């Protein structure tokens, strides 16, 4: 029983946190849209539900806070008060408090927050809002029903002019009526059924109008915009209803269990690779044996199934990136308010699915970029107006999948980076010498912001509570095997483009050989492989380079990168194999002795090894049963580029 209770509490925490995550961006939406019944209802319901469940579990503090906040939402919903910034602030504060209380429960730290001041404040805010309204005219409120009545009577008039279709043939329910009426009122607004039902009730109270009449009238009058929309909307609603049914079939599973399956799937991939190898051997040796054919068939079936299983398992770990993005509207609102700027956030592609690990680690770097953009990039309103820009700043987050990569772009319409200023600051901080700054390309100059120690302010993020600089952005993202590119244009804005591989556990790799040892190189950053004659390799100021289709590309020996020194035994060969790596806009070549082939590898982390300085990402077991190191090309690129710069 105790375990059961413990599980219920865990579930409550997760579910309550999810609810808060979900409603938080709705507040910001509410602020933009104004008194939107739909949004208010949604927030109200979540508060209400959290309160209800907390009551059962004896979390009185949560009940108190949620109750006070719910009261306000209820008055808002019933149009008894109107929305104001101070009201919004105090409700948002209560959300923060709820989160804090949930954390205390989760960590079982026994800390008792004093919620009384907040509850009082909520009460006061409500009172203030009520008295505010009393002073105002009632006009604003009384108008609404009038509009609706008008709408309905208009609808009924329309119905007279159109021959009624048999209502029994396809009886639309009253929800559709309400929806259509709502569409007339505001065509762009998508509304939820709870509100629809509410309006439907209001409509049904208008006695003269038979529901079906409105229905048919709107359904039939295809000439009007309202009708067209009205017909589409029910379909969407059916879809939404279907989605809901689907949602019910979701299962909450402990992440460890999924990871276990993931691990096992990885092992199966390895065994599959081995079997492929073995069966190829038999195929060559006993080509005519009938059993060989049967073996080949079975193995190729296993091959296909394993690939499918791998994708299925990978998908189990995938979650919509919305989970991370949903906290940003609030964040942007709060930060911009704190620096007195007006910034609008637009989010696209929140449905893009990414690996769970990405969800966990991409939030902090993104927060940091956003903070930086609002703080430094977006100009104050006067300055923007003087430049002929809209006074309100804009930040766009766009997420999409490109090939095997997930791309997250954060674009602001601020002042852009001043590269000379960046260089100057870096010199002042002793991060660069004058000479280095002179030689530096524009691309490299932008990257100054990622240098450790460059960030002007050590800002403690409210969310994480840690003080981090922009260098952390880069580190965090390279932990995910990803990279950041920055493009900037003066007075137009700056774009941070983060690219991360879709999956982190199983990757396609190119197997290469150096000094008789095999290594795996992740395939995604490899642009191409080349076989070049030695005489095509030039040396410019101590750096080997090669010209590939009129582009100069620096070249490194894998053997020397890994610290074996240049491999003498192969020097007598007059050609080399080159792997062209492209990371963001950096390109370089790695020279190896042999290209072995492509293989699907499962990354196994190596414990107790400094993976950053050794350029080893992890290890894998290959088809022939050997342990092979997987090389960290991201780390290599960072390091090698610094070498060329120095």
């Amino acid at each position: 029983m105790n375990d059961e209770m413990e599980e219920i509490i865990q579930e409550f925490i997760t579910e309550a946190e999810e609810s808060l995550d979900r409603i938080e961006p709705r507040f910001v939406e509410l602020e933009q849209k104004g008194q939107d019944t739909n949004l208010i209802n949604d927030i109200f319901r979540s508060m209400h539900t959290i309160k209800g469940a907390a009551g059962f579990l004896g979390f009185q503090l949560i009940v108190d806070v949620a109750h006070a906040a719910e009261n306000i939402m209820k008055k808002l919903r019933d149009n008894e008060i109107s929305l104001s910034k101070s009201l919004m602030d105090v409700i948002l504060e209560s959300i923060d408090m709820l989160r804090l209380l949930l954390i205390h429960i989760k960590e079982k730290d026994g800390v008792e927050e004093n919620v009384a001041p907040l509850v009082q404040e909520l009460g006061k805010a409500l009172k203030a809002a009520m008295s505010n309204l009393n002073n105002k005219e009632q006009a604003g409120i009384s108008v609404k029903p009038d509009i609706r009545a008008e709408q309905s009577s208009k609808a009924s008039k329309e119905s007279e002019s159109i021959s009624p279709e048999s209502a029994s043939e396809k009886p639309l329910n009253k929800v559709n009526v309400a929806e259509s009426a709502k569409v007339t009122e505001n065509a762009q607004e998508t509304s939820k059924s709870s509100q629809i039902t509410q309006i439907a009730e209001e409509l049904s109270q208008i006695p003269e109008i038979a529901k079906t009449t409105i229905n048919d009238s709107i359904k039939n009058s295809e000439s009007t915009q309202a009708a067209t929309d009205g017909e589409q909307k029910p379909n969407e609603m059916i879809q939404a209803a279907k989605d809901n049914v689907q949602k019910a079939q979701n299962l909450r599973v402990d992440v460890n269990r999924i990871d276990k399956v993931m691990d096992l799937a990885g092992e199966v991939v390895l065994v599959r690779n081995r079997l492929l190898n073995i069966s190829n051997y038999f195929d060559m040796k006993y080509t005519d044996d009938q059993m060989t054919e049967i073996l080949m068939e079975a193995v190729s079936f296993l091959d296909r199934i394993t690939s499918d299983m791998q994708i299925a398992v990978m998908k189990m770990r995938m979650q919509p990136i919305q989970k991370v993005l949903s906290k940003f509207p609030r964040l942007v609102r709060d930060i911009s308010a704190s620096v007195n700027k007006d910034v609008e956030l637009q989010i696209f592609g929140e449905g893009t699915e990414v690996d769970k690990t990405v969800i966990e680690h991409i939030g902090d770097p993104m927060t940091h970029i956003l903070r930086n953009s609002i703080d430094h990039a977006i100009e104050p309103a006067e300055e923007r107006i003087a430049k002929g820009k809209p006074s309100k700043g804009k930040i766009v987050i766009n997420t999409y999948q490109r090939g095997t990569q997930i791309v997250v772009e954060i674009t602001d319409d601020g002042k852009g980076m001043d590269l000379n200023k960046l260089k100057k600051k870096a010199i002042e901080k002793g991060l660069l010498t004058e000479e280095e700054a002179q030689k530096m390309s524009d691309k490299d100059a932008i990257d100054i912001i990622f240098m450790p120690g460059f960030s002007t302010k050590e800002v403690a993020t409210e969310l994480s509570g840690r003080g981090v600089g922009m260098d952390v952005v880069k580190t965090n993202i390279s932990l995910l095997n990803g990279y950041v590119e920055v493009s900037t244009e003066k007075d137009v804005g700056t774009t941070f483009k983060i690219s991360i591989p879709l999956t982190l556990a199983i990757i396609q790799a190119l197997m290469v050989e150096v000094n008789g040892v095999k290594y795996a190189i992740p395939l995604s950053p490899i642009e191409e492989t080349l076989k070049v004659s030695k005489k095509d390799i030039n040396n410019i100021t101590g750096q080997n380079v090669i010209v590939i289709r009129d582009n100069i590309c620096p070249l490194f020996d894998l053997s020397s990168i890994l610290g074996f020194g240049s491999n003498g035994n192969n020097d007598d060969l007059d050609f080399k194999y080159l792997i062209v790596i492209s990371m963001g806009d950096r390109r370089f070549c790695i020279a190896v002795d042999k290209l072995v082939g492509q293989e699907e590898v499962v990354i196994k982390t190596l414990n107790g090894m400094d993976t950053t300085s050794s350029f080893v990402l992890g290890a894998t077991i290959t088809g022939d049963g050997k342990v092979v190191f997987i090389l960290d090309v991201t780390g290599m690129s960072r390091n090698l580029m610094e070498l060329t710069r120095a």
Partner: protein
Amino acid sequence: MSDFKMKILVVDDFSTMRRIVKNLLKQLGYENIEEAEDGAQAYSKLKNGGYGFVVSDWNMPNMDGLDLLKKVRSDPELKDLPILMVTAEAEKEKVITAIQAGVNNYIVKPFTGEVLKEKMDKIFERLAAQKQ
């Protein structure tokens, strides 16, 4: 006497709440409990038949408890199905609406297993009396 094999539907949009109610019902001895996320889903489950009792939350997206109640009462196949409505204290005034719509009883959050049992017993006693 309560029939512990009776199929009961617990309707709530918050899965923790469903679990809490389910847990209380199990403590009372009921074994055959199913869940639904909102009124719409509940209704389609009920239409499949076999349910002897419904415990429904009021405030839910898509179709709320009151609409579910109305829909069940107007459905000739389901109209006699006993429904217990779960409400929060603040909604007490709305209870009248629910009674008018034909709810069998209501229960205020948070409640204990005993209170739930009491309410259920009352409902079944009354139903038995009506039959006689």
